């Protein structure tokens, strides 16, 4: 009886609960991506400074982010801050803080990489044509950087969306946690687990797929005309 399993999705308000959980997932991810984009650009610029102190600071930040599992960081902020400083942050805020801390560093590094990958002659030719520094940045460097950054930035965004699944460990009821609650309730129907996870998979897919399509479309669009971004 295959329908025995799938029907659990529609008992009571189970499906609305999953969608509500998805909204929590999206909310955390979108805020995080927004913060990471803005702070990431600043972080990238900071990384490019010649100053040893600012470069060292960025490197330390980036290394912490790379070596610490996200879950440990979440625990550190959610439980650790309450324990050490008495800051009782709620789960969602902790999640946004941790993921932004991560996203900022990663986005910054991508931005730095994209910017430094632009051949030196681009800047020099522009200068030779008599463009000012601001004009070089605006019309020559920024469009090319954006084009190189785009695929990676979108890749990072989908990674952020998927990583939000961890926040169920700090009392945030996002889509996966709702799924587990539904499975937990119908533990006598083994097929329920399959259908619930299939539904969760589908919901993640429905979010990440359009983003991926958008990335492909943007990439293609920018490739057709090299200066299209500057227009």
């Amino acid at each position, binding site marked *: 009886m295959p329908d025995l399993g799938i029907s659990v999705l529609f008992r009571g308000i189970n499906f609305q609960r999953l969608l509500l959980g998805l909204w929590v997932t999206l909310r955390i991810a979108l805020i995080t991506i927004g913060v990471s984009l803005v702070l990431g650009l600043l972080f990238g610029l900071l990384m490019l400074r010649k100053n040893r102190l600012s470069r060292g600071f960025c490197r*330390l930040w980036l290394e912490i982010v790379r070596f610490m599992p996200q879950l440990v960081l979440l625990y550190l902020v959610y439980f650790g801050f309450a324990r050490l*400083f008495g800051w*009782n942050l709620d789960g969602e805020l902790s999640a946004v803080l941790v993921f932004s801390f991560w996203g900022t560093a990663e986005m910054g590094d991508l931005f730095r990489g994209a910017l430094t990958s632009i051949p030196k002659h681009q800047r020099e030719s522009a200068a030779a044509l008599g463009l000012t520094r601001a004009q070089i940045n605006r019309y020559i460097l920024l469009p090319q950087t954006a084009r190189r950054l785009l695929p990676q930035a979108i890749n990072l965004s989908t990674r952020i969306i998927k990583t939000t699944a961890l926040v169920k460990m700090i009392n945030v*009821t996002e889509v996966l946690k709702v799924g587990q*609650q539904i499975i*937990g309730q119908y533990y006598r129907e083994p097929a329920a687990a399959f259908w619930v996870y299939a539904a969760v998979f589908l919901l993640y897919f429905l979010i990440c797929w359009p983003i991926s399509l958008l990335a492909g479309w943007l990439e293609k669009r920018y490739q057709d005309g090299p200066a299209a971004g500057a227009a």
Partner: protein
Amino acid sequence: MKRWIRGIALALALVLVLASAAAAEGFRTLDEIRESGKITIGLFHDKKPFGYVDEYGEYQGYDVYLARRLAQDLGVELEIVAVDAPNRIEFLQSFKTDVILANFTYTAERAEQVDFALPYMKVALGVVSPDGALITDVEQLKGKKLIVSKGTTAETFFEQNYPEVQLVRYDSYTDAYLGLLDGRGDGLSTDNTEVLAWAIENPGFSVGIESLGSLDTINPAVSKGNETLLAWINEEIRKLGEENFFHADYEATLRETYGENADADALVVEGGVI
């Protein structure tokens, strides 16, 4: 380059240690909870029938039933925090919840980190076997094959106390139960709550031994040192015992799982008296 990174890391660690030393006792006393008008209780959200969320998004189960009553008798609102087994202690140690009621088994090791109140449930081992050759006494198992899951209390209990019982070990519960259905053993042993529920689902099998081995108790827990709250919960559990509250809780939440014939006293503890 590496040296100053280490220096900064050391400085950070020092700050954290100092800050932790400076952090005041963060738990909320009974009076503070009353004043705030809200008690936060950590409950399971996916462990039916003890703590779970039903299809309307409402918390239900044996633990939840008690949590609601505690809040009601304290005259405050109940705020439920969904916890998972591995982080239950953490929620108390970081004062994110006032009480944990997530089917928390008492162990000496845990008692060093949190304070346990009086028990409200008990768990022991049970043995399920086919009706045709029902095992009702552990002596009957000698020289026979008993199915267990690796790493469970059942495995260690029989290894230590009944070495003459032949153990058939499986990696997962699912495989162990399948083994019993296939006749690869004369019986199967694990937590009595588990075998009782399983026997109901599987006609032809019964739990001949309902309670075996050292009894584990399930207790509410509070942050280490929160004496006022602990004393109130203990007093409350004694009072609830007088009205047979936990039997009513059993009927409301567990009866459906364990069936008409199950003996509530195999699980329920009234008034904290085992």
